[in-house]
């Protein structure tokens, strides 16, 4: 019976397009992410959030009557598969792409700019892509790793008795991503007169004991842990084990509820992280989503994930993208293509997704949206914000962005 039902469905589907052409084509987003290799710790929830938000928008009637469609594919973090998926989705008419994979995003940057389609690189990809003139079609949308490091440092400066004279250790995975905050922290150390040292542990970070023995001897006042996935919980455990108080552990955005489970929810109490988006369902968008998408069973994944850190980040990215599309449709007169959408992004002003995220303003120059974020603390049960949405040291961040952008323009 089930099979027949499916057959019937397929038949309906086959007839479907003919009927659908009467309406306008949906707006297509290519969410071509890594579900099987390096980013498995985040992609599932993140992508679920993205899909669910688009479903919500569609349920609510779309934007100006236009619907959204997500093209979801696995790239396995392999550039070649990413390129193929990109080209295919572009053929299908996608005008916005999100790879959530640094290698794949990097491999596509040039092509996307040439093809004039929008590439959003929230929390991954090139940090210098925030330079809007150099990368007109690339939108980090959220704070770069440089901004994240700056916000964490700023928090210590504001709430933990100032940075001056402190010793800060950066314990990072041995990869370009792990090393990214180093120049910002070096500059800050000079400006704010604190001591800074970087410690690298080998990828994937499941064993870090030697590094932490060294870190302990450095006697840092604060530790920034800069990794992703399983390595993060190992870092927290090792830090605690080596006598570093949980309160002095600061993490990049990649530290989520699952990591807390892994470390032990109580043991991790006090650990702080940079947060780009509010967690939980205590938010207008999320509550509407639960009501209209999750409860009717239209969700793209397990209900348990709804409201988790990465889920909400996914929701926020799509909230921004849909907002950009709305602005583009509202203000544009031509068809909604990549260029129109790009212009839409650059019209975003003080958009906070009904409080889900910091108010961002994207301009032609600044595709980062101001580098906002806040610090949240693990209470043993959940992430509790301990600072307001803020942005910090954007002058230093900006100089780093410009330096990278200049290098890119120079041929690299």
């Amino acid at each position, binding site marked *: 019976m089930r099979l027949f039902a499916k057959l019937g469905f397929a038949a309906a589907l086959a007839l479907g397009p003919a009927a659908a052409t009467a309406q306008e084509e949906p707006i297509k987003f290519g969410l071509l992410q890594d579900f*099987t290799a390096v980013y498995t710790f985040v992609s599932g929830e993140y992508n679920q959030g993205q899909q669910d938000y688009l479903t919500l928008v569609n349920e609510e009637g779309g934007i100006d009557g236009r619907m959204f469609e997500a093209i979801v594919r696995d790239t396995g973090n392999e550039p070649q598969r990413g390129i193929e998926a990109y080209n295919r989705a572009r053929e299908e008419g996608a005008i916005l792409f999100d790879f959530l994979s640094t290698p794949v995003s990097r491999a596509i940057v040039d092509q996307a700019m040439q093809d004039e389609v929008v590439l959003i690189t929230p929390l991954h990809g090139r940090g210098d892509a925030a330079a809007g003139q150099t990368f007109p079609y690339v939108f980090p949308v959220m704070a770069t790793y440089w901004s994240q490091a700056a916000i964490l440092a700023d928090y210590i400066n504001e709430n933990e008795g100032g940075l001056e004279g402190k010793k800060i250790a950066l314990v990072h995975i041995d990869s370009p991503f792990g090393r990214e905050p180093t120049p910002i922290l070096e500059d800050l150390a000079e400006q704010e007169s604190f001591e800074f040292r970087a410690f690298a542990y080998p990828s994937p970070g499941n064993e870090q004991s030697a590094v932490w023995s060294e870190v302990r001897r450095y006697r840092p006042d604060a530790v920034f842990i800069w990794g992703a996935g399983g390595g993060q919980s190992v870092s927290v455990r090792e830090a605690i084990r080596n006598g570093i108080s949980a309160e002095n552990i600061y993490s990049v955005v990649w530290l989520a509820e699952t990591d807390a489970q892994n470390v032990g929810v109580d043991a991790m109490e006090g650990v702080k992280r940079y947060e780009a988006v509010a967690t939980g369902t205590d938010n207008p968008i999320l509550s509407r989503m639960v009501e209209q998408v999750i409860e009717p069973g239209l969700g793209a994944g397990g209900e348990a994930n709804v409201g988790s850190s990465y889920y909400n980040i996914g929701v926020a990215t799509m909230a921004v993208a849909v907002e950009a599309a709305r602005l583009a449709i509202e203000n544009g007169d031509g068809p909604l293509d990549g260029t129109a959408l790009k212009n839409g992004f650059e019209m975003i002003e003080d958009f906070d997704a009904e409080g889900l995220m910091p108010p961002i303003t994207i301009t032609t120059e600044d595709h980062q949206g101001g580098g906002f974020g806040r610090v949240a603390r693990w209470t043993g049960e959940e992430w509790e914000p301990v600072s307001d949405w803020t942005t910090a040291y954007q002058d230093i961040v900006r100089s780093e962005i410009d330096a990278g952008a200049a290098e890119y323009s120079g041929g690299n």
Partner: protein
Amino acid sequence: MFYRLSGIHHTGYASAHRLWSVPADRWQVVAVLALALLAPLFVSDLYLGSYVLPWLVWSAAALSLSLLMGLAGQLHFGYAAVMAIGAYTSIHLAQAGVPFALAILGAGLTSAVIGTLFGAAALRVKGLYLVMATLAMQYLVDWVIVNVPAISGGAQATLRTPDVTFLGLPVETLSQRYYFALAWAVLLALFFMNVKRTSFGRALIAIRDKDFAAAVIGVDPFRFKLMAFLTSSFVGGVTGAVLAFCYYRAVTPEQFSFNVSIQLVAMVLVGGLGSVIGGFLGAGFVLLLPIILTNAIADLGASGWIDLSQNLMAHLPLIFYGAMIIGFLLFEPLGLAKIYDNVRKYFLVWPFRHSGS
């Protein structure tokens, strides 16, 4: 059926040993080449750029490795590192203003030198131990690339290829890059086929089959093993450069990771050790199968035919991919080349069962 063997006779050893002495094979090669040459005219950019072009480059890579694994019998699980050396060398040279042709040559030479160091292990051990040794060297090369910003390209660890011209011909647009890759793949295929027919190739095969026996008949295993590594690494390095310039147009360390080495070995094995057509088939299989599966499964999912979680659907290609490798090794260890050969033989003896009747 379409093979006509009668009337083929050789009036000298040169003609007896020429490539494709069967006209039908010759026509097939000509037809495939003609299709390949005309591809930019009738293949959409999507397929040209993300299927045919990478397939050609990976075929060249598989052939380069097959030269070593198939002919000389030397296992190599660090071949991506060899290609990385070529890619990085060429890109740095090109950025420094060296003409592209020379940059590619430099890429080949650098890879050849470092690749031959890999071969040093082969002088001492073979089999599993050689696998381990080359694997370890892959890690070393990766580490150096990642940890030396001068090589990997600074904070972003991305190097973009500058626009180049090869002997006056630009290599920029998709079709230009496609033709360049095609030329390299064809050149390499011809080289491979001819190596098999030289004394060098036969010496390699002798070493592969039994190295001390080869030594007894006067083939110096040391010299020829190093020569094999040298040659293979040279073409591997050039292929790395072609991969960087014609396909990725930007190199990052991840493009040459350990997984890529495994994929290359899979290409060679699935294709069939030491076979040219196997190189092409194996590369196509390993490269394109996951992509095709991903799309097929996504389409099936979208049409409601399969109702699985996003997570499982994403993993299905990986599952099939692993299962196919196992399947090949269990049921057709000689790879796709053997399957091709069986099909060819089926038609070669058509309408009979074997050539005896």
